[in-house]
């Protein structure tokens, strides 16, 4: 089994997850509560990776990260190494690719919070920030956990974007799904099977956790 690829995938997923939590919460909050009339455009952009073929997304990101693009040049001047075909590039691509998987469950949970509770909070003297921290977040924990878990799992299993942006450099950009592809190409079916089985078991475990959390019988009972 390609342990190097597995460790790399987990590292990638963990970093992406942490970043998505940090930017996903404010984006989801804004999407839920903003009354801006053009909000639907932002919603569409956030959801784009859901419908776009990974190769299309990967292609444009490759262009954006290349040494000839402003972003690529800026990055090279800043860090001294290029963005395309590196782990850093992979992180950025994965964040964009997994964004809807973090934002949508969180936004759905925010939207489920009874507006009456938010109004009660403000008549009791709380600012919007305090209401968000004390009321909205605690009542949305299940959605936040679902968003984190889904984006972790989704990053772990992505293939097309990684191949386009990262290539297949061992220890740099070879993730577990690419390793499986490599093993199959080399007719090492036994190895591929072992790695695939590991991913399958992991994904099943993750989804079970998500569904168990989103069921939340206790929270529903205490609503009434």
């Amino acid at each position, binding site marked *: 089994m390609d342990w190097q690829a597995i460790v790399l995938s987990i590292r990638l997923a963990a970093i992406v997850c942490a970043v998505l939590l940090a930017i996903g919460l404010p984006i989801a909050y804004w999407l839920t509560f903003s009354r801006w009339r053009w909000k639907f455009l932002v919603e569409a952009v956030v959801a784009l990776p859901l419908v776009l073929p990974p190769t299309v997304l990967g292609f444009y990101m490759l262009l954006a990260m290349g040494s000839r693009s402003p972003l690529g040049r800026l990055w090279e001047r800043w860090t001294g190494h290029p963005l395309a075909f590196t782990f850093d590039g992979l992180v950025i691509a994965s964040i964009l690719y997994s964004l809807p998987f973090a934002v949508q469950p969180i936004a759905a949970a925010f939207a489920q919070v009874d507006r009456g509770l938010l109004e009660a909070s403000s008549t*009791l003297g*709380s600012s919007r920030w305090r209401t968000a921290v004390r009321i909205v977040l*605690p*009542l949305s924990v299940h959605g936040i956990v679902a968003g984190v878990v889904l984006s972790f799992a989704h990053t772990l299993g992505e293939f097309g974007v990684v191949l386009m942006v990262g290539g297949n450099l061992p220890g740099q950009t070879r993730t577990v799904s690419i390793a499986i592809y490599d093993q199959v190409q080399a007719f090492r079916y036994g190895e591929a099977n072992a790695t695939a089985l590991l991913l399958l078991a992991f994904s099943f475990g993750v989804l079970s956790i998500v569904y168990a959390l989103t069921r939340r019988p206790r929270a529903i009972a205490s609503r009434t």
Partner: protein
Amino acid sequence: MTLAATIRARLSHDFTLDVRFEAPPGVTMVFGESGSGKTTILRCLAGLHRPDEGRIAIGALVAFDSGLRIDVAARRRGLGYVSQDLALFPHMTVAQNLQYGLARLPATERRRRIGAIAAQFRIDHLLARRPGGISGGERQRAALARALVTDPQLLLLDEPLSALDHVTRSRIIEDLRGWNAAHAIPVLYVTHSHREVFALGERVIALERGRVVAEGRPQEVLDTPAHEPLAQLAGFENVFDATVLGADAANGTMRCLLPGGAELEVPLARAAPGAGIRIAIRAGDILLAAGEPSGLSARNALRGEVRSIEREGAAAIVMVDAGCRFQVHVTPAAVESLGLAGGQPVWLVVKTYSCRVVWNQSRES
């Protein structure tokens, strides 16, 4: 501390809230049928809905003034608001709910206030529980206490007790009165129940389609309703269109003709013979007699026939056809002793002053 409000808010293309009223310290009932704009008034006062025009002054605080472009945020209005669904925070204990509005106070003061309010509203044994685990009445108490513990300058209650049984409700009301005896702030209490208006209010503001149609002491407003929907809300089960036959100015009465041909003597109103008026009579103000009554002070005895008898709680509702259909409330014991049954002839006895003129064609034109 007095609340003075002028509110204009267009809520839909054919409904505009347009009210002006004052509420002194004490309980003021805001009374009207659903859709009359009661809740919107509270939401405007609380800062949860922005009026299109108007001015809201809570004591010395100008909370809203469209002319001066003042619109104080809900959290800075210093008022207590209890919505119909109470909005207790489900993930917090009762104690944490009570504490929520006191974040700016030192911990010792917070504890002192929570202890005091919990004792006063008899929820001290529930402080460690969550709202999901206590009864409906206890939740109402917790929600009231949460609003009151912040020492509000104005208390807004949106049918907070409508889901409770009578006994629990009157106990909570007593506790609320006890609290307000010491604080003397205006309390606006929204309701659509005329029983609550009589039981609780020192003053009542009656609303109809977004306008104030009557204002004053409950007895005055509900006993002389000027509008038909208000009459029905205020518990006048019988509302008839009648024609004035003639006035007896010396006695302060007039005779009028009911649909179906029966005549009724009602209090004098300024209406010419032939004019249309509308008369409202409470079902509980009508007496039933099995034989023709004589020697009565009541001036009206109408002959009719029992159509149906229904039990509702401790009362029996008797429908009587006397040319037009009357609803009469009597006790089940009375039904038994009179031997009332469908098809039986009866006499309806109505005092002149139990009849209210709620609409008068002459005054309209």
